[in-house]
């Protein structure tokens, strides 16, 4: 296992300590637990708090998006493992500014069940109004008629951005929830894996692929995809990512934002090669691209592969996408 670490057991707490040391003006931990990370200026009176949570190993997801215009807090689990109910609860409590809290996170069993427990506890013990929105954007994980069982992947970054922008404008909890749902209803993703990553405490690869194999549709923890086969060209891969998305949501004639995301090891160079093909295909379908995001937005440590996310835009989503945001990993525009 070729990793720069001190002790697999301390991978996450040491990572969090480093993160807090690097961004003291932006982030703080609460309840004496580095796994409970919130904006340094939390709670913000009168603003809906947005809390996410999930396993580590996906930076910048999740906690890299805690900051102005995006998230208020993040409960951080061990690598690829849910945080605890207690951590979710403490994070929720710490960002509550009187306007309620949105739990916005990926559709993974452990997270779902633990957030349910945390929501119960926050509403029962502290009378905090909680709304919950699950991210389930990965078209590879279930057919359209079971869309609600899909897993959440990079599309969550768009949900963070859109919901975060509206919350920053002091919208109500119901409004923030509604816009998150609206953004996600218009968001689809699909990925491809070329090589595995290693969970530090496990010490061996999460899956194996032949020297010349790839898996289309594989999940970000190595969950099985839709098809394993010979490694194909960039153009063929892009086609296999975009086509299922185009079948799942009507996009012709519309404007979209796209995110081409490396799962970690795949270099930017290859994302740009993919992007060349992507715009070609989108053009064929009369789809215009607004503000492409190309880089590493949701990773699986050193996994080799990439994902594509498309969000269909309307005026409101465009306005919120353009709104300023400032977090350790996502900066654009300027707050006035």
């Amino acid at each position, binding site marked *: 296992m070729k990793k720069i670490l001190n002790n697999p057991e301390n991978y996450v707490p040491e990572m969090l300590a480093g993160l807090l040391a690097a961004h003291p003006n932006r982030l703080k931990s609460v309840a004496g637990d580095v796994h409970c990370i919130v904006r340094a200026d939390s709670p913000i009176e009168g603003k809906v708090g947005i809390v996410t949570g999930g396993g580590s190993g996906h930076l910048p997801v999740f906690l890299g998006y805690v900051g102005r215009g995006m998230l208020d807090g993040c409960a951080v689990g061990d690598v690829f493992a849910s945080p605890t109910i207690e951590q979710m609860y403490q994070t929720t409590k710490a960002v509550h500014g009187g306007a309620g809290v949105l739990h916005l996170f990926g559709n993974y069993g452990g997270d779902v069940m633990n957030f349910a427990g945390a929501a119960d506890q926050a509403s029962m013990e502290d009378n905090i109004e909680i709304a919950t929105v699950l991210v389930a954007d990965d078209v590879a994980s279930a057919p359209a008629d079971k869309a609600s069982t899909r897993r959440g992947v990079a599309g969550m970054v768009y949900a963070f951005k859109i919901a975060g922008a509206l919350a920053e404008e002091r919208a109500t909890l119901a409004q923030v929830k509604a816009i998150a749902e609206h953004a996600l209803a218009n968001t689809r993703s699909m990925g491809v894996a070329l090589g595995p990553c290693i969970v530090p*405490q496990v010490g061996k690869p*999460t899956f194996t692929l032949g020297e010349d194999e790839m898996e289309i549709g594989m999940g970000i923890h190595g969950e099985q995809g839709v098809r394993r086969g010979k490694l194909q060209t960039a153009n063929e891969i892009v086609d296999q990512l975009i086509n299922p998305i185009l079948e799942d949501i009507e996009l012709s004639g519309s404007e979209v934002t796209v995110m081409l995301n490396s799962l970690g090891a795949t270099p930017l160079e290859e994302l740009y090669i993919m992007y060349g093909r992507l715009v070609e295909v989108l053009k064929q379908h009369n789809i215009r691209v607004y503000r492409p995001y190309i880089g590493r937005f949701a990773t699986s440590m050193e996994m080799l592969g990439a994902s594509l996310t498309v969000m269909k835009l309307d005026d409101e989503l465009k306005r919120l996408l353009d709104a300023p945001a400032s977090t350790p990993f996502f900066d654009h525009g300027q707050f006035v």
Partner: protein
Amino acid sequence: MAAQLHQAQVAALMASVADYMVSHKDELTALDAELGDGDLGRTIERGFNAIAEALRGELPADVGRLLYQLGKAFANAAPSSFGALFSAALMKGGMTMKDKASISLSDCAEATQVALDALIERGKSQLGNKTMLDAIAPALEAMRAALAQDGEVSSAAFFRAAAEGAQRGADETQHMQSQTGRASWQGERSIGKKDPGAQAIAMMFTAAALHLEAQGDAS
């Protein structure tokens, strides 16, 4: 007199189960690697280590609060799907035995029923979806059958019956298509593989039966 388990016996039994589970974790990792993300062994290890540690500390005098506390320890140590559900089961099941310093085997069956209901509520899943539920339900049935057949059944025999039921149920999951959790993303390809959570449940009952058999417990 019908078999009873005292708080200390329950604690000893849970310690044995914890021990057994930790040493059998790799089997569960392998199953979860096939069907899920390969971390169930780690969940089991962390969760049961936390239980073992809690058992070495100060313990409530009644069985209900004991199980509740062990469930909470599991939840904080191993918050995966299985951890969230199993700990909820221990906590809710435990709550039915609050204030009891010793419990009967029908209390056990009753608690298992409550735990099963709690799991269904929290996990929003159903029997036949290829989950741990499919091991718990037949275990519960076997418990009820054992009690019905012989009101004086020993706790060892009672848990052996439950273990056999759970194992049968776990084995049955091989023929099911997963409808819940990350295994469901495999769709039809999940058929032919045993559900790791169900197998974990079967192993726990087996561990309990082995413990009681080793005690020569025929009370």
